[in-house]
């Protein structure tokens, strides 16, 4: 039984056409699962469906065995899911520290310990804790975004194209950090445009085409798969 | 069909007012309703066609009124002799300074441009004042009790309706050039400010329209009641109708204005409807509904908006001139934003924004309610204070301010319509 599973999801935005067709995505604790595919394949849509930002006509989402399909995104956050949107994912007018504080908003307890953990994971954030998030570079901002999501001590962390628009070096660094996060036992679900690098660090990979699962395997296996390589990895 | 019914109801209201209150009163309301309807049409052109939220209607109406003064008032030769040249010179100087600033902004750049602009503006300001102030002082000292201003052109006041439209159009061009690129919030605030400034200028620059001393020497467009009473042809007419002479003369005057105003209203309505249905009108609404798409298609959105803004304001200016004509006096102090700007907006929203017929109906309905509410307010208050002692301060206070209940009423009407029937009584097609 997977820790988080979106099973046979079918649905779309509002009353529009279905984007996902019987799509299944699953991830285990401490595992990194990556969703890749061509543009318009429904990658972000699949993740948003799991998070509850669109209506599922068919299928279900289960967290640790519990059906959470109908839960609102805010309740899902309380249930232990963290979500890092692709854009607009920090409070640009607030300091790094305040961003992290906002991340922990739903917590009643003392979250300083968690903040220290985040600072350990992302040392640059500690350095720039008093700076406004809007003044940071793209890569640093992404770290703030991830750090913010980590403040609720989620059991699942979902990232929507975390390396969009960052340089290759920064991307490598980000992926390193994500691996560190996974090591702490958090399940990571990631949508990525940079398929090759993402599959490199992935325990599990889902290749989506037109809203359907096309290939599902370990990251390594997908990288070695000639069909996958030809279609999505440039041979 | 429903529309005809609504207008018929409205007509019935006038008849009722005539029967139960007085025909003279009913006709007064009718005339003001006609004027309001024209203003509402102007606003609708801006809002319905282009989605422009103009909160400065008061200013354009005042410009129309000022036109009435400048067209119709008798010229004051002494004032012209004393300061006319100075005023003209300052006008030329102003144009020169503006031209200079435009030149500077086009031909230079960077630091030089910034400093040069500032110097030109400040220097220009003081230079103009050098010529302007003495001219103004000279003019205003000529018989201030009766004139103290340059006077007008002494032409029949009816010309001022077109001139009023032109003035307002000119003002709208200036405001539009400056403010139309702004977001709707800011445009609203900017137009609010412009209208306050226009009124401040009209109140303050006595040499132009006597400021708050008002101009009450305008010659009306139709014969006065007194003239009618003394005219044999009218006397026989009144006898034929078996009507009391003085009342009849009053009613005749009002009916004449009503006729004139109705002609103007119908003319403007006809033109507006033609424009709405024309390719130009369709394009305007396409822009309004999806500005970005229209812009992507190469339509010059700002220029189109400017056109609509100018035309709509011109219509308001015409209405302003009509109002001053009927009052036969120009009183800048009476232009207050609640009555002239926001009330018109209530008319458009309630009547049906985006629909010309709706705006007219709204103009009639809301003005009618506004006037009648002033009379019925005290009656309502009577009910409310029924249980109270005759001389209790609360009661006297409430009774005194009953007339202001209509503000509350207007607000409530606007809120209810916005919430439950936002498209108004006669919605856009």
């Amino acid at each position: 039984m997977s820790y988080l599973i979106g099973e046979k999801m079918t649905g779309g935005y509002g009353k529009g056409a279905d984007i996902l067709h019987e799509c299944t995505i699953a991830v285990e604790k401490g595992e990194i699962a990556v969703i890749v595919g061509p543009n318009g394949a429904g990658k972000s849509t699949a993740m948003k469906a799991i998070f509850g930002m669109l209506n599922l006509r068919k299928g279900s989402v289960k967290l640790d065995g519990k059906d959470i399909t109908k839960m609102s995104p805010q309740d899902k956050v309380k249930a232990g899911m963290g979500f890092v949107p692709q854009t607009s994912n920090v409070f640009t007018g607030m300091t790094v520290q305040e961003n992290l504080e906002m991340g922990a908003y739903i917590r009643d307890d003392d979250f300083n310990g968690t903040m220290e953990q985040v600072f350990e994971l992302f040392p640059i954030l500690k350095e720039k804790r008093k700076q406004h998030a809007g003044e940071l570079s793209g890569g640093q901002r992404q770290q703030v975004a991830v750090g913010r999501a980590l403040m609720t001590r989620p059991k699942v962390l979902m990232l929507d194209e975390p390396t969009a628009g960052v340089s290759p070096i920064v991307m490598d660094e980000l992926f390193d950090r994500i691996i560190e996060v996974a090591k702490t036992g958090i399940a990571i679900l990631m949508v990525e445009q940079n398929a090759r690098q993402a599959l490199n660090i992935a325990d599990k990979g889902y290749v989506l085409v037109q809203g359907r699962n096309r290939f599902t395997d370990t990251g390594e296996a997908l990288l070695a798969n000639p069909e996958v390589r030809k279609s999505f990895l440039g041979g | 069909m429903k529309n005809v019914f609504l207008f018929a109801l409205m007509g019935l209201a006038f008849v009722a007012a005539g029967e139960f209150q007085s025909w003279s009163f009913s006709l007064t309301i009718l005339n003001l309703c006609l004027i309001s309807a024209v203003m509402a049409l102007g606003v609708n052109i801006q809002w319905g066609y282009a989605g422009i939220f103009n909160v400065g209607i008061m200013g354009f109406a005042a410009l129309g009124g000022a036109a009435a003064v400048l067209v119709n008032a008798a010229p004051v030769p002494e004032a012209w002799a004393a300061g006319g040249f100075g005023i003209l010179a300052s006008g030329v100087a102003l144009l020169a300074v503006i031209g200079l600033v435009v030149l500077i902004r086009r031909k230079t750049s960077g630091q030089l441009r910034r400093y040069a602009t500032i110097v030109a503006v400040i220097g220009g300001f003081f230079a103009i004042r050098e010529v302007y102030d003495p001219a103004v002082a000279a003019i205003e000292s000529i018989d201030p009790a009766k004139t103290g201003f340059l006077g007008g052109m002494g032409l029949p006041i009816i010309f001022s309706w077109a001139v009023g439209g032109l003035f307002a159009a000119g003002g709208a061009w200036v405001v539009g050039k400056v403010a139309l690129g702004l977001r709707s919030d800011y445009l609203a605030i900017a137009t609010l400010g412009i209208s306050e400034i226009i009124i401040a200028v009209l109140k303050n620059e006595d040499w132009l329209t006597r400021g708050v001393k008002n101009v009450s020497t305008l010659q009306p467009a139709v014969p006065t009641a007194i003239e009618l009473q003394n005219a044999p042809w009218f006397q026989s007419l009144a006898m034929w109708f078996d009507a009391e002479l003085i009342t009849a003369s009053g009613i005749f005057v009002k009916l004449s204005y009503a006729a004139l105003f109705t002609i103007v209203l119908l003319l403007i309505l006809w033109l507006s409807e033609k424009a709405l249905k024309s390719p130009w009108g369709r394009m305007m609404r396409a822009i309004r509904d999806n500005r970005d798409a229209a812009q992507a298609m190469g339509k010059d959105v700002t220029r189109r908006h400017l056109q609509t803004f100018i035309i709509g304001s011109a219509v308001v200016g015409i209405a302003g001139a009509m109002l001053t004509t009927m009052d036969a006096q120009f009183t800048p102090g009476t232009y207050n934003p609640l009555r002239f700007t926001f009330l018109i907006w209530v008319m458009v929203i309630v009547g049906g924004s985006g629909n010309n017929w709706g705006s007219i109906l709204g103009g009639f309905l809301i003005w009618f309610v506004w006037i009648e509410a002033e009379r019925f307010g005290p009656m309502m208050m009577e009910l409310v204070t029924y249980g109270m002692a005759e001389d209790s301060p609360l009661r006297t206070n409430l009774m005194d301010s009953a007339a202001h209940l209509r503000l509350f009423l207007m607000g409530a009407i606007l809120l209810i319509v916005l919430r439950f029937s936002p498209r108004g009584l006669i919605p856009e097609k």
Partner: protein
Amino acid sequence: MTDILNALALMSNYVFVPGLAYGSQLALGALGVTLIYSILRFSNFAHGDTMAFGAMLTILATWWLQSMGISGGPLPTALLALPIGIAGTVLFVLATDRMVYRYYRKVKAASIVTMMASVGVMFVMNGMVRVIIGPGEQRFADGERFIIKAREFKALTGLSEGISIRTTQAITVIVALIVVALLFWFLQKSRTGKAMRAYADNEDLALLSGIDPDKVVMVAWIIAATLATIAGTLYGLDKSFKPFTYFQLLLPIFASAIVGGIGNPLGAVAGGFIIAFSEMGFTYAYKRFVAYVTPGDWVPDGLLQLLSTDYKFAVSFVILVLVLLVRPTGIFRGKVL
């Protein structure tokens, strides 16, 4: 030397002191407008009349206190009545949100529609104020009128120009300082304040973080109503209470908020003072000042007044338009939605 001091005294009396007081009043008003803009995302045309409403309630409470023999001593009794006025205004404003604005938030109406609704609320408030307290002028300041009179100042310093400081002016500045400090502390340090800043900064992300939008909106209205009541009361104490003037204040208040950077509280305060001092500076007759500052006995002809006082609003308006054209985000780079 005495000439320079006289010149300074002159400016203080006619420009600096009144400007400080007026600037404080505008700052408080602009803070309310900017807060509503950043959280509720519309320009509240009813804010001026909210100030009138709040002032009215305070005046009524003042009269009630006075009738019971309670007075503030040297300070205006209105200060004691202020909490009552604030409480009443807060309740009324929350009611208008519930009855009017909440619906437009739910249907995600365009901000222009909410603006029009605020025009409706403006009418209603305007009407209520005029019906309840009448449209005429009300004077309700009591207590010690002056902290220092011009005559006393002249006697003290031996200068020929006096500075008079009215109690109401000093109170305005002090109260404004306290309120602004409290507000900034709230926004910067408290959890709810930070949540509000987050909500204004990025609504979606704030919702994702579990911030309750209804609570944020409610607190915003409460603060705005409080600020409006305080600003309206201080203005009424300092000048006088006349319902119509509050509507006219809308323009300088909007100008202050926009010039400073709409959505930015610091900007609202800065903007308030910029507008106030500009209005006073541009309409002041500098004749005596120049006479003092220039050597010898030369006195300039003419008043040396840049603009007549009737054009006060023109000043704030021109500044507003300039800012909108040149730098729409304002001095402190507010948020332009």
